[in-house]
């Protein structure tokens, strides 16, 4: 037990035996979560199985985000059914439409180093920012985990990534995610767990980490975890007011593969349609006309994203449509107090909070035929944000804000 990676350490603890890559294990779960759109399906599975019950009420988290506020009658009906479940089963950690996006809430309030978290949404990997082994699963698997408190997993191979130095200007967590996608492509990490070591913890804060972990699923990784460090302690203390315990890999841990990213040498990156791994430098696609910019989602809806957007948009007007959605009540409130919301509003953005809407072509900014979108969200698959004939580019907040001002894909320096 003395030379385990973070993945092996967490999964050994959760299964009660020493595990190695390839083992099929039954793991105890610390948190089971779902949202409105997947939640009704999870409950439906429970009903069909004849077991509408949960293993531990205090370990279930439910948040409404995909259909929030409901864009149609069916969405309202889905949410109504889940509210009834919450009441019947007496779930204490339930967040209605006014609180925020599930993955952001897990990061802000619940995820801890060393936990196993499963949720009915692929972007559950986001909680890896705090060093939790967090996986998205389908409705049946999540229903089973909610009922039994356990799930089966295949122990992935651990892949070590080291982030060195201070990020170059405008470089954030999105650029690191896109760098990994561009260099390794979308299938390379299938069956692998990525463990990220940050040499200078304060240079890559929790906001950035959450963005990078969020896109672990785009890399098809089983998990993308940041090795807990002083930044993890600082974040939990600041957001929740208590100390968390660090769970870290052993110093002798062996990693079959390693990769280093020098943050100071990076430049802003963009994923071009229709694939998350179709990565180019922002300079390569500079000048591409765009119809709409979306700043937000569980990928990039945090305070630092809005701080960057506000810095770029201050005193300017957007040329493209721009929708800006902080991921939670807390993020919106803080951005409001710091004046970022006002800056974006005065620049001509539509601002609200706590909905996934545009990211999945749901509502609040669906792409029309032939439209080009630049989004800070996580996916640019064909038809993802609306029409099959629309195109989505993905970027971090700096390129997104600059592009909204210019009406075409731009570098922050172009509009300064």
């Amino acid at each position, binding site marked *: 037990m003395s030379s385990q990676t973070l993945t092996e350490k967490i999964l050994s603890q959760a299964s009660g035996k020493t595990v190695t890559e390839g083992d099929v294990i039954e793991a105890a779960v610390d948190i089971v979560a779902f949202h409105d759109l*997947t939640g009704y399906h999870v409950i439906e599975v429970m009903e*069909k199985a004849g077991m509408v019950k949960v293993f531990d009420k205090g370990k279930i988290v439910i948040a409404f985000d995909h259909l929030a506020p409901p864009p149609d009658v069916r969405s309202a009906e889905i949410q109504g059914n889940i509210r009834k479940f919450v009441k019947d089963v007496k779930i204490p950690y339930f967040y209605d439409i006014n609180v925020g996006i599930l993955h952001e809430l897990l990061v802000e309030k619940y995820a801890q180093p060393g936990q196993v978290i499963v949720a009915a949404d692929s972007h559950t990997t986001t909680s890896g920012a705090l060093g939790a082994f967090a996986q998205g699963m*389908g409705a049946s698997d999540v229903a089973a985990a909610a009922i039994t408190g356990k799930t089966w997993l295949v122990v992935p191979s651990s892949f070590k990534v080291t982030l060195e130095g201070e990020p170059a200007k405008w470089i954030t967590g999105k650029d690191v995610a896109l760098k990994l996608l561009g260099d390794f492509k979308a*299938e390379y990490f299938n069956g692998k767990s990525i463990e990220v070591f940050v040499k200078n913890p304060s240079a890559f804060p929790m906001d950035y980490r959450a963005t990078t972990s969020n896109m672990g*699923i*785009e890399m098809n990784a*089983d998990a993308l975890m940041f090795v807990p460090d002083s930044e993890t302690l600082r974040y939990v203390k600041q957001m929740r007011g208590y100390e968390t315990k660090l769970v870290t890999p052993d110093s002798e841990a062996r990693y079959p593969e390693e990769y280093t990213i020098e943050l100071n040498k990076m430049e802003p990156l963009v994923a071009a349609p229709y694939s998350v791994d179709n990565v180019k430098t922002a300079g390569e696609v500079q000048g591409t006309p765009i119809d709409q910019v979306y700043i937000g989602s569980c990928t990039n809806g945090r305070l630092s994203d809005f701080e960057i957007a506000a810095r770029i948009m201050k005193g300017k007007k957007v040329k493209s449509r721009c929708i800006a959605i902080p991921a939670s009540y807390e993020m919106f409130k803080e951005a409001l107090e710091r004046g970022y919301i006002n800056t974006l509003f005065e620049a001509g953005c539509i601002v609200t909070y706590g909905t996934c809407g545009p990211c999945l072509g749901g509502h609040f900014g669906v792409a029309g035929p032939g439209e080009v979108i630049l989004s800070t969200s996580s996916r640019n*698959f*064909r*038809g993802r944000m609306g029409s099959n004939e629309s195109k989505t580019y993905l970027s971090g907040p700096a390129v997104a804000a600059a592009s909204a001002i210019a009406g075409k894909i731009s570098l922050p320096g172009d509009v300064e």
Partner: protein
Amino acid sequence: MIVEGPAIKFGDKIDTDIIIPARHLKYTDPKYLAEHAMEPLDPEFHKKASKGVILVAGKVFGMGSSREQAAIALKAAGVKAIVAESFARIFYRNSINNGLPVIVVPNITKEVNEGDMIKVNVETGEVIANGKVLKGKGITGMALEILNTGSLIDYLKKVSIRQTN
């Protein structure tokens, strides 16, 4: 378990937004989902698949969302099994949990053409196509037990009954 049928072929990185677009996720009725399976690439897919087909695809089939409707839609449309060069983890589990066999066979897209009759041994992972025997990764252990039971729901019921007795 042996399944047979003509192949419908797709390339690499078929994502869940292609398999079933998000606007259809407010429903779980298999019949409804089947009609919209693969809609962005081929709106006629469900008609072609309705007689029972085997999907043959490239790398990371089912990448993206956790939506279980993706597996349900394909199965309901008539897909008897999927043979791909690799699968995204969530989709792979969702398929087994809904009784849809998924077999990994390296280079399968080079060996099979659209319309070829193929035969899949789900447990051994052996695939017979164009007179060739291709070796894939079969389904074993708990995954096989779920598949043989029909779905994770049925498996849960069975395990729960076992525990009660």
